């Protein structure tokens, strides 16, 4: 195994078995806030136990180890093809070791070859930057939460949602209502306003790279992020949809330009088992530091 493969394997392992610190803190706050003796509190206790157990046993937090999505910031002239080979190899080994479930299925034949490598798996997004540093971030996103993602085309008459931030708010809160507990709440929303149907969803997922405790640089969007979380937590959907005080742990909104004819609001729902990690790698391919 090369040093790069080794580092990527460790990135996959850690992403699958450990929750990032910012998310863990939000989960602990939510456990505190739930009413004592309710099934919502009981659910949050099991979630808290599960986080500790997964880390101690170095086994997946959730059996659905999800879509494997790499985000790579690389220097100009970086060999992307070699990186793709290394990533595919690391995914195969991580699957054999049980850090990833055999999770990738041929959509026509229904066959699962057990490797997790095939068209679209893993997905790797490259982004060049003028720095010698190589940064690799990884999101493992389960199917249950992916299935409750939603895309709205505004105006939407049923929701009385116009082409403005209030219309966006209505669409986002409708997505929370429709999701109920099916996406394994308390959840985190990645949202994109604008873009096309493909870039909108893609950019909404990228918002999930942000830390829960950061602030949106745009004051209007920051207000909307806070408002969405506050309002969602008044709805009483609660952990797992059992009823309760925490429905969302966070909401992050990004914006892309749109065509005059289009106005999309794309919502990606992330479950409480928010598997996101990242590393900065040295020129030798070894792990320098962790990003979350």
């Amino acid at each position, binding site marked *: 195994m090369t040093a790069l493969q080794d580092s990527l394997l460790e990135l996959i392992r850690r992403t699958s078995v450990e929750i990032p610190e910012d998310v863990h803190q939000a989960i602990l706050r939510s456990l505190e806030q739930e009413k004592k003796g309710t099934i919502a509190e009981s659910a949050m206790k099991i979630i808290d136990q599960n986080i500790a157990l997964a880390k101690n046993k170095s086994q997946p937090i959730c059996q659905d180890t999800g879509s494997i999505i790499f985000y790579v910031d690389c220097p100009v002239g970086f060999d992307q093809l070699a990186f793709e080979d290394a990533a595919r190899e690391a995914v195969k080994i991580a699957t054999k070791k049980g850090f990833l479930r055999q999770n990738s299925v041929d959509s026509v034949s229904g066959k699962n070859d057990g490797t997790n490598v095939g068209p679209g798996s893993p997905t790797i997004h490259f982004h060049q930057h003028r720095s010698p540093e190589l940064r690799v971030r990884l999101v493992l996103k389960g199917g*249950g939460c992916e299935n409750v993602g939603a895309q709205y085309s505004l105006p939407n008459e049923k929701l009385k949602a116009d082409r403005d931030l209030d219309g966006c708010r209505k669409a986002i809160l409708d997505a929370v209502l429709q999701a109920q507990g099916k996406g394994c709440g308390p959840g985190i929303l990645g949202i994109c306003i604008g873009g096309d149907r493909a870039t909108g969803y893609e950019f909404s997922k990228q918002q999930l790279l942000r830390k829960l405790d950061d602030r949106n640089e745009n004051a209007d969007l920051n207000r909307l992020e806070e408002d969405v979380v506050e309002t969602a937590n008044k*709805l009483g959907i609660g952990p797992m949809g*059992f009823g309760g005080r925490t429905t969302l742990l966070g909401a992050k909104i990004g914006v892309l330009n749109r065509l005059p004819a289009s106005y999309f609001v794309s919502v990606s729902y992330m479950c409480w088992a928010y598997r996101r990690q990242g590393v900065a790698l040295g020129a030798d391919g070894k792990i320098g530091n962790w990003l979350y």
Partner: protein
Amino acid sequence: MNRIAIATPVDESVIRSLKVGDEVAISGTLFTGRDAVHKYLYQGGKLPPGVSLNGGILYHCGPVVIKDEHGNWKCTAAGPTTSIREEPYQWQIIRDFGLRGVIGKGGMADKTLAACREHGCAYLHAIGGAAQVLAESIKRVPHVYLMDEFGAPEAIWEFEVAGFPAVVTMDANGNSLHKEVFAASQAELAKHL
């Protein structure tokens, strides 16, 4: 909160006595079955020899299972998958195979709720994502069925469990926590728009 102990095979009277909000701890045998298994059984597929769902509990789960150094199956992660995808099929499987319980997450809808009431079955909600806590209660994995046909996550796994925790969210008397929470949250949202 005290959990109500349930052992398989389960009597109808035990299931009929459960109410929405009850927390249970399940011991005995669970069989997993998810998307491929439901479609297969609904379309007339036969249960493999060795699998009996009569009085049994079906678990919507695609686990991570590896072979240990002795060649035995070992389950290393086993949380529930989203149940609503089985809504088109579940009612018939409850009716035809004598199921007393379905474990999953996210809840199911009216056809399943009606089948639970008619045939004496309950929907038991496990904590989604809690793959390690739930795997701890799986003591042994004696068999796997339909592995070649459906692949590991979609196969029928036989689990011996002790103290498997779940919450009754749809009971055999027509009550559904999911319906209640949806209606209440929808009404609340209307106040904030």
